[in-house]
């Protein structure tokens, strides 16, 4: 079985002035289809860097990254953009909705860059918005929604192009416990439907929901637990 994500000796260095910062040290990591992996670690441990790499927002300094069996380490910026729009769904801590667009338009953004027709994009966006319980909020601007609702819009947006990998960066970080819980339930639901999810979090309770916890320290993986689930 081909893993969705396969990192081979992946490393990442930043040059900050004269200082060379190593963010990731030759990481090997495999994530398989349908997995729900949580990445934990203190800030500066390299987990955000990993998420950016997985999301094709940042090129590797060394090693290889195979996404769905395709080696994208040498891809051009345009090719990476295309990969992001077709294969990856992002969920951010601060939602990152575009303020001047309404709910439907926000959900449609990734389809926009794939050249999907307006009618089809609207159709797909409506279906997802309804599923997220936003049927009566379609024409609202993000500012008119609660945090939980905004995160639901963001989740709908991440699902709209049916990605093979969903990346979530502390999706409940800005939400109260109850709303956060609802969002986590939603993510569980998506995982149950077969979505592959990688989530960065600080929260141990959240980590217990996932089948797998990857812990980072100083740019290295220090533990890789399957939470008692069977290792694929």
């Amino acid at each position, binding site marked *: 079985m081909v893993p969705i994500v396969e990192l081979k000796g992946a490393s990442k260095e930043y040059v900050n002035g004269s200082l060379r910062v190593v963010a990731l040290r030759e990481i090997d990591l495999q994530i398989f289809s349908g997995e729900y992996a949580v990445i934990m670690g203190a800030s500066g441990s390299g987990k955000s860097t990993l998420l950016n790499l997985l999301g094709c927002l940042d090129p590797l300094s060394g090693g290889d990254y195979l996404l769905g069996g395709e080696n994208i380490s040498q891809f051009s910026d345009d090719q990476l953009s295309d990969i992001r729009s077709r294969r990856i769904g*992002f969920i951010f801590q601060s939602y990152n909705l575009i303020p001047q667009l309404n709910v439907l338009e926000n959900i449609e953004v990734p389809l*926009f860059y794939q050249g999907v027709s307006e009618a089809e994009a609207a159709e797909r966006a409506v279906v997802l918005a309804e599923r997220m319980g936003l049927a009566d909020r379609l024409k609202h601007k993000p500012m008119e929604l609660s945090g939980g609702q905004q995160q639901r819009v963001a989740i709908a947006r991440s699902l709209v192009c049916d990605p093979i990998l969903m990346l979530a960066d502390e999706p409940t970080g800005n939400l109260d416990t109850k709303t956060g819980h609802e969002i986590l339930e939603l993510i569980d639901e998506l995982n149950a439907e077969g979505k592959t999810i990688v989530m960065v979090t600080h929260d141990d309770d959240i980590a217990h929901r996932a089948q797998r916890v990857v812990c980072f320290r100083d740019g290295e993986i220090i533990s890789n637990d399957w939470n008692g689930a069977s290792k694929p």
Partner: protein
Amino acid sequence: MTTMPLTRMVKLAVKNLSQYKLRAGLTMLGIIFGVCSVVAMLSVGEGANREIQEKIQRMGSNNILIKSVKVPKDENSITSSRNMIATYGLTYEDAQQFSQYVPNLEASTPMKVLRYDVQYKARKLQTDVIATTPWFLRVQHYRMMRGRFLTGSDMEFGSPVCVIGSRLARILFAGYDPLGKTLSIDHDAYTVVGIAGDIAQGELPPKGELWLEGENQNVYIPLRTYLNKRGDLFAQWSEGGGTFEKIEIHELILTIDKQENVVRAVDAARRILRKNHKAEDYSIVVPFELIRQARETRRLFNIVLGSIAAISLIVGGIGIMNIMLATVSERTREIGIRRALGARRADIVMQFLMETLILSLSGGMIGLVFGALIPLMITAATEVQTVLTFPAFAIAFTVSVTVSVVFGIYPARRAALMDPIEALRHE
């Protein structure tokens, strides 16, 4: 890899611009003023140019106009010269020598221009009587409305015939057909044989008289006839006495065969006049030289205009750049989000460039409308002639749009080259 269709890019740009209506409006104002001023200035310039060209053209670019001019005398001689005969101006000898020595001369048309009372039945008015030769019509490019102009036989026999201007025909003969009627010029009888059309603009009487430009109120009679009747002495009575003037030729039009020979002919004519006249009691007008001067002036005007236009458009362009830079930095996060969701650099460039383009296109359009209205208003409010030309529109519009797109590229590229991760972190 697919690109977004143009119509959706336009929609997106319009949507984004409508978020900041005031800002967009103010930015457009720069372009509006730029385009508007260029179009308006070009129209006024072109109008002035046409007016001058027309005037000169009607004098005939192959002609040299020589006029007799009264030389002002000092105080003493004025008092002593009262009731004496003042002799000045062009002579028959001058004309004779011109015909002999001016190269490439095609025709020489002498004129006497005199002011007389013209009367038909009870109607009477004072107007210019021009005693000349049949060539006059051809040299001045007049149009005959009815009848004929003076002919060679009129000259030969000194026939008492006259041709009247269209306006005079209307005023003096209101209700009658002038052809064949006899009018009196200072008590001499002349039979009307033709009606001439518009007058050349250069010959218009001084302002203050109420008539429309270009309308002809002159009477043309054969020079021979006039000389037979009156000779060269002209008496003019005014309050406190009268003056006698002896002028052989009031105006002389030398017609040269080709334009390129005009300059040489002028030199020859000047030499002759300088030799024959002690005082400079003549003036030479060369329409051809006026045209050249007008062209030179026009060129200078265009340079000045071009610089002003360039400056105003660059200022407009900088305005656009400034606003777009502000917009880009304000929307850094949006750029990050769009990049994360799959926008390529080209998509981001297009997004911002499209906003610039729409700003400048609509600004340009509005500018064109105002640029067309202002000259119309100027023409309506004043006597100044203005001409709206297509090149003026095209130049103003394309230049402004090009400038703003050029100035829009930098902010758009800046947006596209942002690191998406940095952009996403931007607050």
